[in-house]
């Protein structure tokens, strides 16, 4: 997709920068021992003096959160400072219990990284300016009481949850790449276990700064910040809409106002949330309650050594070494649980046909998993795919066994033998079944003779039924056809 926008004769370039807030996957909050809240928790039940900002309470940093961000830095090739520190960002709002947020200004935990992004136009790189840790705010709920009066309620459960903020350089030029960047970042975070990043649960929030300019060489235009994009699809649509909106505005001789706009999924438009007030002075200064943190090269090396294979490397390996198509590799790697089953099954049966296995994982497995099925035991799953691949059982039997395998433990080899599931490929046996079916279906034979081709399909189906599903369907089809032609 081109970043050029043509409308009314003018051609402009879009410039997009993306800021993403992700909830880190940690057992406890960023600066206190409170557990991470779930939607099922009672309001204000996951709180303590520290995340409530009570007088006298102090923060203590969560080492696991810091390690996860160092891991993210290592995964995006960023620079990790030898010392990091915390800063206070000061502003008043009812969701901010201390009147300041502990964040990182000058020494973020990661700086100058990049992520490779594949789009319909090819492979490109998005530079990441910085990634830093901060604490989440409380949640406000605006309600109307029984007497009609309005009230704002505050739930501090989320207050103090560890957030990672990741900011790109203004490198993006179109909506598709922006979406792909967000998807790729999410995949990376999930792969290394840094975050679950479920957008629909608010664990990942994407904001885009969008501006237009007359050419790639021209200075940046006035930017608009777009928020409230609750899915990757919304990210793409909102940015595309915003580019078009600004372009039309400029075509009409107007100018873009610097503001924050929200994306409305229903009307598929952006709307003004707030005009840019005078740029806020957050009066950042180093957090005196937390000493600076030294990060040794050894610590970074230890974290780097624990990193799993990253998505880009894994995709390349699947294509180059296993002969998968780029599409199949993308599907498998795009779902960490799929990739993990694929890897485990391959480890169990190294000789297994990788393409067949990829089809089963990307097809049956992901379909079942998305419907909430249980995880198949990888060794048995490998045995199942191997049996199908060898023609030992037919596909239908394989699918039935797969459903059983997802529901609980199953010994594939034993089940095939015990239940006599082995596919009947012996022509003599198949011919007997076919002849018997034909003899029992005079109407179908009459139809065939009357030129109704679909009678063949009916007869093969009946024959498969007679074989209790074990017949080799392709062979059975050929034999039935031969018998019909001979009538």
């Amino acid at each position, binding site marked *: 997709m081109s970043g050029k926008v043509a409308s009314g004769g003018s051609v402009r370039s879009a410039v997009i920068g993306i800021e993403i807030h992700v909830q880190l996957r940690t057992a406890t909050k960023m600066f206190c021992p409170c557990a991470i809240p779930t939607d099922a928790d009672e309001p204000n039940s996951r709180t303590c*003096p520290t995340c*409530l*900002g*009570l*007088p*006298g*309470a*102090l*923060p*203590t*940093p969560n080492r696991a959160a810091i390690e996860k961000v160092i891991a993210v830095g290592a995964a995006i090739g960023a620079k990790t400072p030898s010392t990091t520190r915390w800063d*206070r960002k*000061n502003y*008043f709002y*009812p969701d901010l*219990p*201390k*009147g*300041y947020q502990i964040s990182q200004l000058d020494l973020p935990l990661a700086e100058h990284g990049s992520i490779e992004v594949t789009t319909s136009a090819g492979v490109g790189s998005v530079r990441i300016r910085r990634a830093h840790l901060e604490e989440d705010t409380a949640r406000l709920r605006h309600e109307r009481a029984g007497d009609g009066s*309005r009230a704002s309620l*505050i739930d501090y459960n989320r207050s103090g949850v560890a957030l990672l903020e990741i900011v790109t350089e203004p490198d993006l030029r179109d909506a598709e790449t922006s979406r792909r960047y967000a998807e790729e970042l999410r995949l990376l975070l999930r792969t290394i276990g840094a975050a679950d990043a479920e957008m629909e649960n608010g664990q990942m929030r994407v904001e885009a700064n969008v501006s237009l300019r007359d050419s790639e060489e021209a200075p940046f235009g006035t930017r608009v910040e777009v928020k409230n994009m609750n899915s990757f699809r919304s990210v793409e649509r909102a940015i595309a809409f915003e580019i078009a909106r600004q372009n039309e505005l400029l075509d009409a001789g107007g100018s873009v106002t610097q503001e924050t706009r929200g994306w409305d999924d229903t009307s598929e438009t952006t709307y003004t949330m707030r005009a840019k007030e005078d740029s806020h*002075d957050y*009066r*950042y*200064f180093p957090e*005196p*309650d*937390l*000493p600076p943190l030294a990060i040794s090269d050894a610590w970074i090396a230890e974290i780097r050594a624990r990193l799993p294979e990253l998505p880009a490397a894994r995709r390349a390996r699947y294509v180059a070494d296993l002969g998968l198509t780029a599409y199949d590799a993308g599907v498998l790697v795009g779902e960490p649980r799929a990739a993990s089953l694929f890897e485990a099954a391959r480890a169990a049966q190294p000789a297994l046909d990788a393409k067949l296995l990829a089809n089963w994982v990307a097809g049956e497995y992901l379909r079942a998993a998305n419907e909430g099925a249980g995880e198949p035991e990888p060794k048995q799953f490998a045995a199942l795919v191997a049996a199908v691949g060898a023609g030992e059982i037919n596909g239908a039997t394989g699918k039935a066994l797969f459903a059983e395998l997802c529901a609980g433990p199953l010994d594939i080899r034993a089940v095939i033998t015990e239940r006599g599931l082995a596919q009947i490929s012996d022509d003599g046996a198949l011919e007997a079944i076919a002849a018997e079916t034909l003899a029992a279906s005079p109407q179908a034979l009459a139809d065939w003779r009357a030129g109704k081709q679909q009678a063949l399909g009916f007869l093969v189906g009946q024959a498969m039924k007679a074989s209790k599903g074990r017949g080799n369907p392709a062979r059975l089809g050929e034999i039935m056809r031969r018998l019909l032609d001979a009538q």
Partner: protein
Amino acid sequence: MSLDPRRATAVQLAAAYRSGEVTALATTTALLDAIEHEEAHLSAWLHLRRDAALGEASAADARFTAARGNTAALAALPPLLGVPIALKDLVNLEGTPTTSGSKILEGYISPYDATIAARLRAAGAVILGKTNMDEFAMGSSTEFSAYKRTTNPWDLDRIPGGSSGGSAAAVAAFQAPLSIGTDTGGSIRQPASLTGIVGMKPTYGRVSRYGIVAFASSLDQVGPFARTAQDAALLLHAIGGRDTHDATSSAEPLPAELLALPSGDAAATALKGRRFALPKEYFVAGMEPGVERAVRAAVASLEAAGATIEEVSLPTTEHALATYYIVAPAEASANLARYDGIRYGASKHGGGDLLQGYLETRGRGFGPEVRRRIMLGTYALSAGYYDAYYVKAQQVRTLIARDFDRVWAAGFDAIVAPTSPQVAWRFGAKMSDPVSMYLADACTIPANMAGLPGVSIPCGLSEGLPVGAQLIGRPWSESQLLGIASGFEAITATAEWRSVEPTALARAANGGAA
């Protein structure tokens, strides 16, 4: 001759409890009665825990009774068991009001214990109540309390110093043997000096700040008030040491010597060969002659006891005050942002206009000195001023610390200096001129800026009012400093000024000439 519960030190009480000579309940009752009798004149307390304290005293007595006759069991009991103590009203104590001297926290009941409160409970101390203070510890006279005006037991027309004025006055007036204060720029040492008691600011990081209402996080330290160095050491030992709830608390081990501080001849003998540095910049212009005389006399007695004294220069001293009034208000402006009327304390929200609610809550809830410092700090952190003020102040802070480092590198054991350039002043004398009040802390602020331990000890009288000498040591040298203080107590035990006690309070409370 039985032990007078009011004049008894913690060390004496501990021994008497163990021998069965007195009980914690009787001691606590005597002190509570005295407090209630004298409070109208001293005004040192914001909250008394009469029933809770008597319960804690009875519990302590039960433990003494159970252990009596068993030497090992008695020895295993904590040294502060049954010893009454007062807490400055910025120490969170679960179930107890904590106002930090401010209207904005009126009605707030702490839902949790500060680490030092939990440690004192675990040590079996009897917590009498919470003491008056300058609002959010900002002030040097306790006149900025939103609640009451604490007097100096030596002269009821004078201030007790501040900001820990209530805690100092209570110990000086024999209402408690021990109390807790906090020191950000001198708030323990200066009132100790002005009320004639011992007050120590430990090394930054020695005592946990968790649960202490913050003023300036990089400067605040909790410390003990007592009437003797030994008592101060016992209290420091009970509250000090690493706390995982405070990331700035140090893992430096707490010296066991604090529990067995030498006294008497042993302490006096230990002064022999000590090297003290006398910083010329601390004898500032505007210092009262009587104060200088008393401090120089103290120096002379140390010399007579075999110590050597050398004058040194700490050239950055003159910049410490200005630097402090950038750093402390800057940190305070953020620390006090949480008092926004949203969750606790006084609130003026409700009209629907959020900004108006903030302005009214904070404009009315904070007193004049707190508002002044919030404005100072907000200004110093603002875009365009941050580098010129805050960054520059932090650089000067490094230079102040280097001045001290040079003294330690030269082999000195401690610095001896005045604590305050003045004795206690009359109420109102400095209220209209904040800078003159700020200057009262010129000798105490440098130790806060450098994070060093300092202790103020009584060293004489000037026009009938107490004068304090200050000892400043290298990091983590609290036991040495208190050892020197104990030695000084020994060599001045018979000095005439030691025999003078504050009597103004007793006279007033008993209906005598006020």
